[in-house]
């Protein structure tokens, strides 16, 4: 049974040229793009409200930040069981599938944006808040005149990685199979699957071209928005800026990271000048704080959380004892598969890191190359790998086969993972180098340090917070790449790309054969282990980065 796909293919007769459904493809690309952008917009708007709640209530702030910290550290596919339980199983139908796709994309883009807005709200200059207090601004005035404008540069900074994440996941979540049922919602991911099933390769090529054009337009628009946002809304000031709570290394990295576009010096300076200070609203407040909004928000969050728990418990109870025995007996092989997948993720991450340290440094130190190369990489990163990989597979298979022999498919899966994730650590490192204090560059040149000395003593330590941020994103997205690549039936005609063993493959195979219990159990084990590992590892590394490797602290000025 195919839902929604029928609608697309049947309505494709209008605007079809030489067997290529131009109109449908264009609409599908637009639908996917609008879905990604709309979800980013939803993240932005909800983030403003949540961030305001966080600066107003310490309890809410602690819960909010803790949850973001956890969720941004775990791979998006961890949420897959939730998708299965709530959207596909409970809600079902076209709406359930649409919400499932949207939810996966939402979880891919939302955490960075929420954290960026929270950070922005926390670092609003105290003088600005005092002006708002002075003139008794209400909620809307404060938001409209102070908090929202102040958060714009940070939102702009997060747009590039969010768009890349969004496109990557939406193309694979628009259409997925569980057993004999294919769930699909209208979009370019579904359209490409449909064209491939019809062996309409010219149609697929056309889809890539149209998608490329739209992505380039989106990237150019985002660059323009970022430039304007930074030019207009960045506060260029020496005045102290209030800051409460822990510094957010990952966020700082992402923030300065991408604010990109020749305004970095300004942003780096702006970041450097922030100093801890008490919240002036707390200092001079004479009226008791109102907590109604917090209570409602808390109740809504609690209700959603309880519903998820209830659904999960209900599902667990519905599984028979015999089924549990089966699942437990499978657990050792699932854990073995997870270990293999970890090795794959480590390999992908190391290769990505190597490329970042060499190519990223080359880009960051050569203006002309950078001017051309960075927009190209931004565009490529937003171009969803799952969409074009089948063609790459066909093109490079003989070559890879001649080198890797029986490990060809393993190499191709690693390559897919690399293409899907390399961008994050590359971009993180590149931005780290760009945001490095100019004085460090002068000292390296002055002392005539060689490449390895520069890397070891100055550049890697100086960019460490950025590298950790990039590596975390790379690791998380590598899981997504493996989920797609480890078992990809009909990747090209009747050929199937698959590895010998791996947890992601087991989950994929179980899902496609309708063994939902095994798929859900595998996802659950994965979620627990990877989440715990990610949180511990990421947190430890970020703590280290915060404690020791903040380059801005090396510049002492009053």
């Amino acid at each position, binding site marked *: 049974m195919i839902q929604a796909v029928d609608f697309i293919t049947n309505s494709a007769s209008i605007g079809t040229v030489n067997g290529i459904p131009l109109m449908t493809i264009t609409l599908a690309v637009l639908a996917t793009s609008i879905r990604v952008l709309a979800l980013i917009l939803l993240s932005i708007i909800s983030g403003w409200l949540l961030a305001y709640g966080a600066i107003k209530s310490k309890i809410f702030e602690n819960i909010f930040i803790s949850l973001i910290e956890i969720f941004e550290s775990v791979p998006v596919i961890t949420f897959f069981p939730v998708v299965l339980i709530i959207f596909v199983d409970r809600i079902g139908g076209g709406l359930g599938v649409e919400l499932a796709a949207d939810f996966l994309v939402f979880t891919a883009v939302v955490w960075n944006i929420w954290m960026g807005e929270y950070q922005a709200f926390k670092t609003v200059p105290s003088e600005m808040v005092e002006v708002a207090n002075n003139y008794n601004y209400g909620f809307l005035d404060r938001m409209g005149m102070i908090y929202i404008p102040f958060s714009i540069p940070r939102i702009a900074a997060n747009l590039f990685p969010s768009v890349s994440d969004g496109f990557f996941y939406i193309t694979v979540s628009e259409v997925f199979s569980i057993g004999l049922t294919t769930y699909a919602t209208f979009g370019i991911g579904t359209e490409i699957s449909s064209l491939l099933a019809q062996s309409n390769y010219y149609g697929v090529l056309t889809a890539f071209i149209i998608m490329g054009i739209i992505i380039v337009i989106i990237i150019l628009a985002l660059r323009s928005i970022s430039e304007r946002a930074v030019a207009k809304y960045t506060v260029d000031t020496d005045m102290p800026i209030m800051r409460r709570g822990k510094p957010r290394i990952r966020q700082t990295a992402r923030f300065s990271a991408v604010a990109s576009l020749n305004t970095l010096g300004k942003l780096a300076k702006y970041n450097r000048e922030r100093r801890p200070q008490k919240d002036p609203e707390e200092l001079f407040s004479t009226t008791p704080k109102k907590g109604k909004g917090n209570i409602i928000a808390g109740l809504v969050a609690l209700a959603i959380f309880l519903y998820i728990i209830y659904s999960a418990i209900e599902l667990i109870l519905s599984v028979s004892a015999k089924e549990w025995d089966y699942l437990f007996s499978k657990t050792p092989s699932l854990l073995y598969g997870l270990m293999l997948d970890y090795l794959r993720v480590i390999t992908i991450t190391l290769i990505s890191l190597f490329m970042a340290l060499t190519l990223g440094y080359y880009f960051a130190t050569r203006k002309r190359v950078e001017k051309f190369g960075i927009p190209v990489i931004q565009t490529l990163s937003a171009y969803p790998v799952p969409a074009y990989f089948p063609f790459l597979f066909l093109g490079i298979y003989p070559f890879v086969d001649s080198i890797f022999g029986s490990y060809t498919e393993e190499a191709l899966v690693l390559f897919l993972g690399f293409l899907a994730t390399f961008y994050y650590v590359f971009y993180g490192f590149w931005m780290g180098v760009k945001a490095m*204090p100019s*004085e*460090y560059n*002068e*000292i390296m*040149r*002055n*002392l*005539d*340090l*060689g490449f390895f*000395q520069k890397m070891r*003593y*100055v550049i890697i*330590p*100086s960019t*460490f917070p950025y590298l950790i941020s990039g590596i975390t994103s790379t690791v998380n997205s590598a899981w997504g790449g493996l989920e797609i690549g480890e078992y990809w039936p009909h990747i090209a005609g009747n050929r199937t790309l698959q590895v010998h063993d791996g947890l992601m493959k087991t989950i994929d195979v179980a899902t496609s054969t309708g063994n939902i219990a095994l798929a859900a159990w595998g996802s659950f084990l994965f979620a627990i282990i990877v989440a715990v590992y990610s949180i511990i590892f990421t947190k430890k590394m970020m703590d280290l980065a915060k404690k*020791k*490797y*903040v*380059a801005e*602290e*090396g*510049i*002492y*000025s*009053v």
Partner: protein
Amino acid sequence: MRTYAIWWLLGTTLEVVDLDFRYENGYKVFQDINLKAEKGKFIAIVGPSGVGKSTLLRLLGAFLKPEKGSVLLHGKPVLRPTPLISMVHQSIVTFPWMTAEENVALSVRMKNLPKDKVKEISSRALEMVGLQGFNDLYPKEMSGGMRQRVAVARSLAADPKILLMDEPFAHLDELTAEGLRQDIYNILFNEESPLETVIMVSHNLTEVIELSDTVFILNGNPATIVAKVDIDIPRPRSPRDPKFDQMLDILYSYLTRKGVKKQ
């Protein structure tokens, strides 16, 4: 070798010849800058705010390339940054992930010496700037004055012939700055130091008179050297000395003259 010998006999370590410089946006900053820095002298460059003092220092260190003219070290053109001309920044620069000793060692490592030797040189440099016993402290555990001493030690450990100092006391409170000023001359020109010349940029005339042997005044638009003033007040110098005040007036008058070579 012959050129070096002549320059050594003449006592000039660094010379700037007919130097012009323009920013990327086309704004001409300097025109016909000429100056000579003599061996054993503490040179100061002063000028009004925004005239390009720090930019000139970066040209002397070859961090920037001039539009025209050249910078000569012992008669040879300086085409790229070199440890022989070492820079101490206005913003006090240390590496927070390194201890004081490791910060200093950074400038010794490029010499490919054994570890023990690197440690010995770094320790000696720290001792020279009065930081013996603080080797294992990280920058964030130090005061601003101590950090600047670390930066000076790092520069000295590179065995430079010329030390460029860009407003080195600007980010220190007055008491700390005064303490460091009192020490700096002896630190820089002690027997162990390989230094030949120090060139400092500053807008603080009191500290310039307190420290310098020669002052070059930079003024105009585009800027050029409008005067050279030798300060022959015996050391240690006191601002209460009438000669000190007299010198202050002279420098002040040069700095407030307007219309020098207007573009």
